[in-house]
């Protein structure tokens, strides 16, 4: 009996070890959206536009994935060495040069999605105004000579945001974070021009405590 128990224990330990290992090393899951017969929307228009430019597609840019789009996609896939199934998945999208059809593709602003990721990773669960304020701090930093001058530069500055260090920035943002990011980019700034914020319950950094506080929203202190 003891042997059995021990074996079970050992197996569990080994399995846990190896699954931890594989988990830590596995790449982030990619959210894939497929476009197939019957799909509609702005991404389909974009697919049609590109196929038309390259002479695969002869129909209208109506945003409806019908028979003409289907055969154009098939032709495109055959000529480009993709598996020709008539479904526009992430590989075909990439071959067409379309950015997986997520928020970034439709908004026309490359910073929106990244900013939303940062807001989601840093401030989900905070009141909406607090989320906009976190986005505004990032935008304010791009306009301050003490910081990098781009949204990506600010967000990925080493050690600047815990969401980048612990990988939470890679979680796809929800609609709320996207909306908050849009507001922050449009100029809404509930933080009152702050360039720092911290959660007093979690911060031990003495330097940040010495900054003058300009706003308190939810759990975050915003400072100059």
């Amino acid at each position, binding site marked *: 009996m003891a*042997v059995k128990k*021990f*074996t079970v224990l*050992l197996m569990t*330990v*080994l399995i846990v*070890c*190896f699954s931890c*290992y594989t988990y830590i*090393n596995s790449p982030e899951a990619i959210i894939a959206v497929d476009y197939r017969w019957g799909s509609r929307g*702005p991404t389909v228009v974009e697919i049609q536009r590109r196929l038309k430019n390259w002479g695969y597609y002869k129909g209208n840019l109506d945003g409806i994935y019908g028979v003409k789009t289907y055969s154009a996609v098939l032709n495109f896939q055959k000529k480009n060495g993709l598996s020709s199934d008539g479904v526009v998945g992430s590989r075909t999208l990439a071959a067409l040069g379309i950015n997986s059809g997520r928020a970034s593709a*439709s*908004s*026309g602003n490359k910073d929106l999605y990244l900013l939303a990721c940062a807001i989601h990773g840093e401030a989900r669960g905070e*009141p*909406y*105004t607090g989320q*906009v304020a976190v986005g505004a701090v990032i935008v304010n930093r791009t*306009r*301050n*000579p*003490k*910081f*990098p*001058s781009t949204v990506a*530069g600010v967000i990925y*500055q*080493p*050690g*600047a945001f815990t969401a980048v260090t612990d990988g939470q920035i890679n979680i796809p943002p929800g609609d*709320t974070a996207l*909306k908050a990011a*849009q*507001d922050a980019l*449009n*100029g*809404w*700034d*509930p*933080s*009152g*021009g*702050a360039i720092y914020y911290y959660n007093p319950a979690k911060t031990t950094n003495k*330097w940040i405590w010495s900054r*003058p*506080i*300009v*706003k*308190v*929203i939810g759990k975050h202190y915003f400072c100059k």
Partner: protein
Amino acid sequence: MEQVMKKRSIYSVIAALLVVGVTTLSCLLYIDRMQFGNRLQGKYQKELYDLIGNIQNLETDLSKIGVSASNEQCALLFGDIWRQAGSAADRVNSLPITHAAISQTSKFLNQVSDFSYTLVKNIGNGNTLTAGEWDNIKSLRNNAAYLRNELSLLQTQMEDGGFKWSEIRYEGGRLLGRAQANVTDERFASIDKEMEKRPTLIYDGPFSENVLNITPKVSSEPQIGLNDAKEKVMDIIGRSRISEIGSYSSKGEGRIAVYPFYVVLKGSDKSDAISIDISKNGGHMVYMINPRAVGNASIDNKKAIDIGLKFLADNGFKNMIPTFSQGTDNTLVINYVYVDDSSGSNVVIYPDQIKVKVALDNGEVIGVEAEKYLMAHHERALHKAKLSASEARAKASKNIKITNTRLAVIPMLSQREVFCYEFVGTYDGTTYIVYINAEDGNEENILQIIDTPGGQLAV
């Protein structure tokens, strides 16, 4: 006996397996960590080398300017300083050093870059450097020389000491109490202190010291009390709709000093509370956010633009006109700007800008952004334009087919305001807006209107 032997052999096999398994796992993890560490080390070393390169070039350029006789040569050198300092600022910010230890260095580099760009433009306009600018360049060169020296020293020490960037952020090291982790931070912090000693740069650029410390125009208005501000909020939202009102922040000391309020509407959840800031000076709405979900659109953009206009007029923002609107997710964000008619003709004042967000499901105003307006709005002493519209038109490109002309005040990056003719026109199917200075005919700015889904220019 046999039973016991069997048991023992099973135990030893299991123990051996465990040892082998765990050893393999830790070896794999160690190799992984080392490779990641080496890659990071490589990336950061490269940044440091290139940073030192940038600073060296910067220092040389700043020295050369002292002995250059021609404006053309000066322009070239300032162009190079602009580039070198900009990329140095990028690099210093990508090193794994705490922000507190590099903020002044970053500010120095960004300001030098910005300052040089302004000088390139000045020289391009035919101006020569003033005595004050010469003095500034001289002391900036000293800063650059100091920075170059310190960074080279640090680099040599890093090579001799063999310590690694990747260990700086190694949490395990911190737990084990290895103090070495802070060496670079300390070095950069002492460099940063020195970099703070530099001339105060006042010039026509966004990072100029007078622009960074700009005073909002609204702060010259008389202060109001908390209760007056609360009354103001109730007027804006509508008394009959409010079920709860209070303060959402214990502080309100931002760019514009404010009383921050939250408002819960009758029949809606506390999580959907509206946030609204009222300026302590003058009691104006600074911003408003209503985070409620918006249903399917039932009103058109034209109606929404009128609703926004009426909302602004009702709340003390008069003489506004719409310039641009952008629709997303059943809402419409409209930019309004102030029109000044004091000089006899209508002048569009772009610095005095307010954004209004209208929900297209029922036409409710669910967002206002008036901070820029309150920062900039004041009585301007506008006079008649020196140039006539046709004289100004002659200064703009012949290629553009002009469809609309009006007078405007536009903000430059440095917040300086310029009185211009605004020409809206098309060329090759694309809409452009060209601004010609109404005083001296300079071409101040060209905007290209990029069509975005849901975007609409209202001219």
